[in-house]
């Protein structure tokens, strides 16, 4: 009797651990990260201009944790990624992060208690999910979807879709246009210039 019970218990344990538990994990993961961002931005102890740099540094760390930078950057180049050398690829990923920071950094920092609601998660493939959220401001509701991919067991964001416009697709079109006429080195130069002029 005891043997039987233990065998059942073992099977039960095996089943629990070998079946990947999807329910809610991507949504929870993104929600946790976004809440951390809100926590950093809204931190009452870090007010004022001087604290801005500290906040930015913390956000950079969080960005690396939340986003799969390589997937993100790779997808904005699509097939053109294959034309880049490994060194160029590395520089591209770095530059792209800086472009995003310069563009959206201040916007994120100016968050003032708008309500963020996570309401849905849908499966795109075995490894990919789309987590749907919306930001509720006083005058409108902005739908923001995060597309996440399973990377080493963690759910990382590889695309952000704001009001039906995918960030990856948007940059992909721009980079495609540029790379249709020029080589990768030129694109890197354009990005360097953009990052330095702000």
């Amino acid at each position, binding site marked *: 009797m005891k*043997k039987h019970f233990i*065998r059942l218990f*073992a099977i039960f*344990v*095996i089943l629990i*651990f*070998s079946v*990947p538990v999807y329910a809610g994990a991507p949504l929870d993961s993104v929600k946790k990260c976004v809440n951390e961002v809100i926590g950093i931005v809204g931190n009452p102890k870090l007010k004022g201009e001087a604290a801005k740099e500290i906040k930015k540094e913390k956000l950079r760390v969080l960005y*690396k*944790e939340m986003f*799969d*930078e*390589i*997937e993100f950057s*790779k997808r904005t*180049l*699509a*097939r053109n*990624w*294959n034309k880049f050398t*490994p060194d160029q*690829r*590395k520089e591209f*990923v770095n530059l792209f992060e800086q*472009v*995003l920071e*310069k*563009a*959206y950094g201040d*916007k994120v920092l100016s968050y003032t208690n708008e309500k963020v609601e996570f309401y849905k998660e*849908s*499966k*795109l*493939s*075995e*490894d*990919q999910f789309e987590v749907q959220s919306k930001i509720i401001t*006083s*005058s*409108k509701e902005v739908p923001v979807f995060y597309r996440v*991919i*399973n*990377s*080493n*067991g*963690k759910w990382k964001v590889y695309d952000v879709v704001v*009001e*039906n*416009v*995918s960030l*990856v*697709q*948007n*940059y992909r*079109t*721009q*980079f495609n246009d*540029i790379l249709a006429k020029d080589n990768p080195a030129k694109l890197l130069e*354009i990005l360097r210039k*953009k990052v330095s002029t702000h």
Partner: protein
Amino acid sequence: MKNILASVIGVMFFVIAACPCNADPSNDALSSSQPPTTFKLVLSAKENPEKTTNPLDEDYHEDENLDEYANNEIKEERVDIADPLESVNRVTHQFNDKLYFWAVKPVAQGYKEVVPESARISVKNFFSNLGFPARFLSCLLQADLSGAATEARRFTINTVWGIGGLLDPSSGKELNLQEQNTDLGQTLGVWGIGQGFYIVWPVFGPSTPRDTVSIAGNYFLDPVAYLNPWSARMGVNVLDKVNAASLRIGDYEALKDAAVDPYVAFRDAYVQYRYKRVKARQAKWSSSPGPAETSVPANPESSKRGQ
């Protein structure tokens, strides 16, 4: 006794090997040699030497193994539009850009300083309410009867109990009658008419031949167009546009700053947005006549509609 030990070891084996939750969360993907894992046994994945490369060294592959129903979601990202008038469009885009920064934005900012946000939101509600005929007709033409009914109810409630449309009680949680975000251009899209090519109109901004019908049609369905002294019409339209701009200061600049090539960025954003809107409306067309107030992600049936 031996059997128990065997089962326990077996359990531990599976726990360690198969549970992805136990895998090392590697923070620095750039320098580690952790390959992206799937939910197969990690053992077999690690045996494959090609997989232990730096993600930087991996080439780009199209997304494989997407589930059937998600195919449309990913595929539609590669929406493109023909742009034969690119050189002309770029010039108009520059013109609109200057118009925004030199004329619209300063006025909108001044207006924003003077007028409190709740008043500006009321004005926005008022003009939204006047957009009822265009939205109502669009819903009917898309055979979206529940949407049309919702629009009618919204108009009645907002006009009678919302102080002539200044307030918007219909959108609240209690009544939950949401504005149907649709127009004549989307109607044509739902009927199967393609986007066409990209045009940038001065003042009106990005558009396509199909969506230009929207702009023209809205003019005839807009109650303001029937105001008599043309100066009154002009004045009201200006108020509408300045008010709307004042609520969105920062959006245009954000996209422009984030872009590497602003013209292409706006073109792509516009195209994606319109494409997704039409897709959402098509999903409504082909789904059963039930009140689906919020936009529904693409149904398997909608892929048959095409476009």
